[in-house]
């Protein structure tokens, strides 16, 4: 993982906070073997920095950084 791709504690906290704000009945999938994940499962993936958790962090941070650019 390059320096740019390193995930910071702040980023993990930000993404967990954002996931806590999604609807309770939400599911998200990207077709990985984990299947469709609930809000709590998504948060666990992020907390444990699993490959899927890292993918979620990159996706959310990419979205947030778009505001900085615009």
């Amino acid at each position, binding site marked *: 993982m390059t320096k740019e791709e390193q995930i910071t504690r702040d980023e993990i906290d930000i993404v967990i906070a*954002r996931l806590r*704000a*999604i*609807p309770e*009945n*939400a*599911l*998200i*999938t*990207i*077709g990985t073997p984990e*299947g*469709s994940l*609930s809000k709590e499962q998504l948060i666990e993936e992020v907390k444990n920095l699993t490959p899927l958790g890292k*993918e979620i962090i990159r*996706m*959310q941070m*990419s*979205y947030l950084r*778009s505001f900085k650019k615009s």
Partner: protein
Amino acid sequence: MIFILITLPDHDDLTRYASVWSEKILLSTAERVGIKPIIISKGKNVTKSQITENIKSKNPKFLFFNGHGSPTSIGGYNNEELIVLGENDYLLNDKIVHVLACDAGKTLGKECKSKAFIGYVGKFWLCMDRFSLSRPLEDKFATPVMLSALEAPNQLLKGKRPKEAFETSQKTYDKWIDEYTHSESKYTTAELQLVMPVLFINKLLQVLHEEQNNSAN
């Protein structure tokens, strides 16, 4: 006679949603514009052998794949690899290809010799409502994502050039993003927190490869 091949695997939530929505949108458009026949490869029949046979025997102009992907492959039922770069990507030669799957736009889409290839250079994200899983067409969280993504093959069926189809799909993503963010939006903050990043990232990762794939164009 114009043939279209559509794959509709349904072995998990993502493939099931993509397939149900594709059937609703693409088959009705094809019928409306008078394009027939359509070759539909569905469920367990979305296999490498069947796809190969259909492409070789019917020579469809359009190939619309729904499934899972990797940078170098497109999957079918239970993720069986249907198209693999360097192995049988010649099946895409001179075709107009849409791939609703993760990653396939990255290397396969760039290096194959399709006439045009619309796909994604990263993960394709889908958000859903757990209470709508049995009724994908009524899923309010999935609706903006599926309508935006499938606008590309829908426009192709309507006779638009790949570039126009891609741009219309991008505009549809934007339209839904506006829908969620304008000041009088009917959506809750929680819904916005869920759907917006998904729309944003899918739009960002959607790509069109054309022309450079085919020097004859």
